[in-house]
């Protein structure tokens, strides 16, 4: 005789609820929630730069800091978990000063011209990055890559030091304009343990000379890079940019307001990643995948990310061929 045993699904204990106060409002959320998430649930906006839902928080930019009552220093809201009875202030004078200075530090040392939302943020916080002095002339190609840890030339009182340097163009698919790099670590995480597991790039050097680099700063074609472009997808500043977009921007023809986005499925393989095709003037100008897509988390491979030129190549059959060209 067979006895049928019914197997119960293990019931997961509901998460403990934690009550805290944010800007005078009481809020309750699951244990383990970040302060940032709790703030957003209340509709409180907090600026972030190095935070992304799909990446492990590195909490390095410090733009998202908030004041936690009783704490000696400010806390990064993007990664600090809520605690029972916490009293959080997101707009205290200390918070506002720290954010303004972080923004001024970045704006005075990095080219933020292609960072979405940055101009508004700088205005909102009343930033005056020029008070640190006029930007120093850009470094020679390779100069920052050769910097030696623990040493720097004495400052020139006439200028504010910057990370300005020539754009690295060493392949046909994307460019690296590290003059625009805020060192948010996102590309390193995306290329490494969080997504791609290729480890083609890492942070090298130290202090103000810290930089994103391949080994020995070799050109990308000599590195482990597989051109998935997943670093481009997470870069918040446009430092990493597909060549197509970079060239159109240089030519003054890039116009986001004239672009539409159409979601489709990548035609190449059986995984079937969701592709968002960005189209301007009836031409595909960029391919991405939605960050919130549960399968791709915004990632693609070289084919999906860059392999769409054939769509707008010479018309199929126009050259009398068999449709493959």
């Amino acid at each position, binding site marked *: 005789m067979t006895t049928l045993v019914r197997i119960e699904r293990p019931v997961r204990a509901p998460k403990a609820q934690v009550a805290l106060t944010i800007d005078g409002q009481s809020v309750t959320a699951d244990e383990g929630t970040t302060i940032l998430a709790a703030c957003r649930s209340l509709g409180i906006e907090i600026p972030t730069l190095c935070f992304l839902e799909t990446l492990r928080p590195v*909490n*390095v*930019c*410090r*733009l998202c*800091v908030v004041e936690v009552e009783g704490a000696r*220093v*400010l806390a*990064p809201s993007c*990664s600090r978990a809520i605690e029972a009875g916490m009293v959080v202030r997101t707009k205290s004078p*200390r918070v506002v*000063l*720290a954010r303004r*200075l*972080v923004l001024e*530090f*970045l704006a*005075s*040392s990095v080219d933020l011209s292609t960072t979405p939302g940055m101009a508004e943020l700088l205005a909102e916080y009343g930033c005056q990055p020029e*008070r*640190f*002095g006029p930007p120093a002339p850009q470094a020679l190609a390779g100069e920052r890559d*050769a*910097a*030696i*840890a*623990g*040493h*720097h*030339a*004495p*400052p020139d*009182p*006439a200028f*504010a*030091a910057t990370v300005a340097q020539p754009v690295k163009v060493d392949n046909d698919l994307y460019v690296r304009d590290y003059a625009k790099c*805020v*060192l948010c670590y996102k590309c390193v995480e995306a290329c*490494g343990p969080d997504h791609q*597991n290729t*480890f*083609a*790039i*890492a*942070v*090298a*050097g*130290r*202090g*103000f*000379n*810290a930089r994103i*680099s*391949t*080994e*020995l700063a*070799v050109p990308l074609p*000599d*590195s*482990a890079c597989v051109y998935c472009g997943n670093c481009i997808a997470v870069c918040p500043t446009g430092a990493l940019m597909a060549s197509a977009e970079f060239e159109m921007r240089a030519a003054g023809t890039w116009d986001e307001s004239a672009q539409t986005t159409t979601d489709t499925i990548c035609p190449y393989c059986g995984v079937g990643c969701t592709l968002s095709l960005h189209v301007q003037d009836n031409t595909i100008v960029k391919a991405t995948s939605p960050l919130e897509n549960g399968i791709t988390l915004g990632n693609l491979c070289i084919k999906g990310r860059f392999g769409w030129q054939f769509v707008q190549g010479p018309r199929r059959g126009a050259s009398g061929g068999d449709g493959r060209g």
Partner: protein
Amino acid sequence: MDIKLLDAAPSNDERAAVDAVLGAPTSAWDGGARGTGDDSHVAFGGRAMREQRHRLVPALQALQARVGWISEGGLSYVCERLHVPPAEAWGVATFYALLATSPRPRRVVHVCDDVGCRSKGAKAVLSAMVGVSPAIAHEPSGDHVHLDADRAGWMHSPCLGLCDQAPAALVTEAGAVPTERLLGHVTPESARALLDGAAPGDDATAVTLLPQRGDPSLVLLKRVGVVDPTSLSAYRAAGGYEALTKAIAMGPEAVIREVTASKLVGRGGAAFPTGRKWEAVRTQRATPHYLVCNADESEPGTFKDRVLLTGDPFAIVESMTIAAYATGCTKGFVYLRAEYPLAATRLQHAIDAARTAGLLGADILGGGFSFDIEIRRGAGAYICGEETALFESIEGKRGEPRSKPPFPVEVGVFGKPTVVNNVETLANVLPIVLHGGDAFAKTGTAGSTGTRLFCLSGAVAKPGVYELPFGASLRSLLAAAGASPRLRAVLLGGAAGTFLRADEIDLPLSLEGARAANTTLGSGVVMAFDDEEDLVDIVLRVAAFFRDESCGQCVPCRVGTVRQEEALHRLARGKSRGGASTEIALLEEVGVAMRDASICGLGQTAYAAVESAVKRLGLFGGGAA
């Protein structure tokens, strides 16, 4: 993970140097010849390989010590042996100041130009060097210069922990038998001779400057300079290992009870109660537990741990063993700053002698517990003294501090519960175990128990390490050290501490006394400056130090330390933007943002000394005085 290696092979010397640290490769999977083992049928990789990552820095140090720099072929071989992606290894190699990633001469003289040496002749030494050969790295004299391997080169260095024998220099010479010497009282002539190939002579730290030698009131220093630091039997004859024997008889809980009763707090800077830390680790369920002795001592002006490590190394081994016993640790690391070669030799000797005598290893003193100690050398990074950066460094990564919480007692090195204590903190454990926590707490003040080591340097006649009960006045300490009658300022607590005016030295040297005077004892630095000193120049050097030593991870510190240094240079050269008061207001905003928003203590204290120079000393046209 597949690794794309560099297209370069190591030289035979490089290969041998790496194999000496990592062992010979066992198969083609980790850099051996093809077909040497079962490698055609079995894949070696995965977790076992990833767990080798912690050997990255020792392997890179082996290359540095053998050929003087980390070449492409050498780097590639290390990556192949340890399965570390070359970009990651490059990120690590370029983080540490004493690892060279471009060719360097085999012999390099690292000349200290930090706060304690500047006024003691370092500038003359440096000008003598400029005449002989150009500097390596971005130095005031100009650009990178790739020198030939056989002609010695020189570089500036931050504080070498030898301020009592200023000016100091560290000589490193790569080779089959590499040389490292920490030299004191360097002169322009001796420096030039070093560049010309003269033998570097004896390590200055072989003899300890100990102004109180033989004083019966000494507790932590009582054996230093008196008992042979290279003899276990001499150490035992002087009462060594009585504390461990007693601790094992007491049991771990009782040891922690005594440490708690002693009210001992950490001497590494943060003054955290040691008993609380030990208890927290003891009760953690995750295993193993690790013990880390923080011997990175890189705070400018600090040299007390060096004196303990070279003068009484067995005491550190014994106190670590007691700490491990109490907290359930089976493995201990000493993270020792690279610039202390003699301390490394003496400590390694003490560890080996203790192991031979059954005082380390399995079933110590028949107490049924096992513990061993490994020394990890730093590679030139002040930030690696910060406890979580230190863990990262041991794990073979860039020394970037972690965000806290979680704290080390829960998630420390290798993700396990970890006790991290300063050398001097550990040294206090011996008297606490021997005489009891209550007896220990009778010395000092109510809020600061026991004695404290102070590092006296600068404008004093008798520099060196002094041991005093907490609560003694700074004035009496300065008098004992023979401070200049024309004293103008004192740097208390190190570069992360504060300057005091000559009329502010009546404070009691206790934690609460320092706090009340709005200053800090920090790592015990007491550096005196008289009216011959160019204090503006000293403050500029402090600002340069923080810029050089910032790990670069977080924006407030990475850019803030640059903006701070720039503003000070503008003020110092009379080129202020919008007047001195505008610049001072700007400095204040930069400083407050660094203090409030930086990840770790480096950024959080990078403004402290500058602020006190402006507000207390009235430099740069600021504040009183």
